[in-house]
């Protein structure tokens, strides 16, 4: 690998088109979900440590902030999941025509909203 190579992609230079916005959000949700995986690890660690330590999780899980983070995590995981499936198709060169790319973007948004709503409605 060439060291000190130019940065790519140039976020502030390119005009924001739908494909680039989806790509940027895929990365943002990816970072968010990576942080989320740390929280899942802490959750299972507290569970493994026993009820005395699991109380810490139970205390935080009752707060509004926790519910908000969980809601954002649900949106993030569904968006990343559905958009990731689209990228997997692209890996095989499927669905790369401009019209299909735009249509699949809209499908990702719709599936994300519907799935998030279904999960939260069933949780209530």
């Amino acid at each position, binding site marked *: 690998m060439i*060291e000190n190579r130019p940065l790519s992609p140039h976020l502030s230079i390119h005009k924001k088109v739908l494909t680039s916005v989806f790509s940027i959000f895929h990365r943002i949700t990816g970072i968010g*979900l990576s942080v989320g995986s*740390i929280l899942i690890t802490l959750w*299972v660690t507290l*569970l493994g440590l026993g009820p005395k330590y699991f109380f810490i999780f139970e205390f935080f899980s009752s707060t509004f902030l926790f519910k908000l983070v969980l809601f954002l995590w649900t949106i993030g*995981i569904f968006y990343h*999941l559905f958009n990731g499936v689209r990228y997997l198709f692209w890996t095989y060169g499927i669905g790369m025509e401009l019209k299909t790319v735009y249509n699949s973007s809209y499908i990702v948004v719709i599936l994300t909203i519907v799935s998030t709503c279904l999960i939260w409605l069933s949780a209530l």
Partner: protein
Amino acid sequence: MPDLVVSFMKNNYVLKWVLQRVTALFLIPLSFWFIYNCICFQNYNHQELQIFFSSFFNSFLFLFMMVSMLWHGKLGCETIVQDYVSNFSLRKISKNLINIITIIMLFLVFLAIIKLNIYS
């Protein structure tokens, strides 16, 4: 010989690209399984969760999901660091930090699952 293996894994970007997609494939069904269980988890107390993880099937799926998730996350974060951090030393520190966090998280998940299975 081990140095050769480490060097192969460290600089083989094709392998990393393939692993990123393989872990993504694993995560598609596993994420749905975990999200579905998360709905049930919110009504579970410690004992009920312990019963859930006492099942080998549930523990195995959770462990498999966490390994895939943490590895997928590590590879993704490394790519982001490579794309946006131009300073060589900062890039190296960031990548090392990602690796250390991933190893610690994997260690914690393994320990927790083993403990939950032994004491259940």
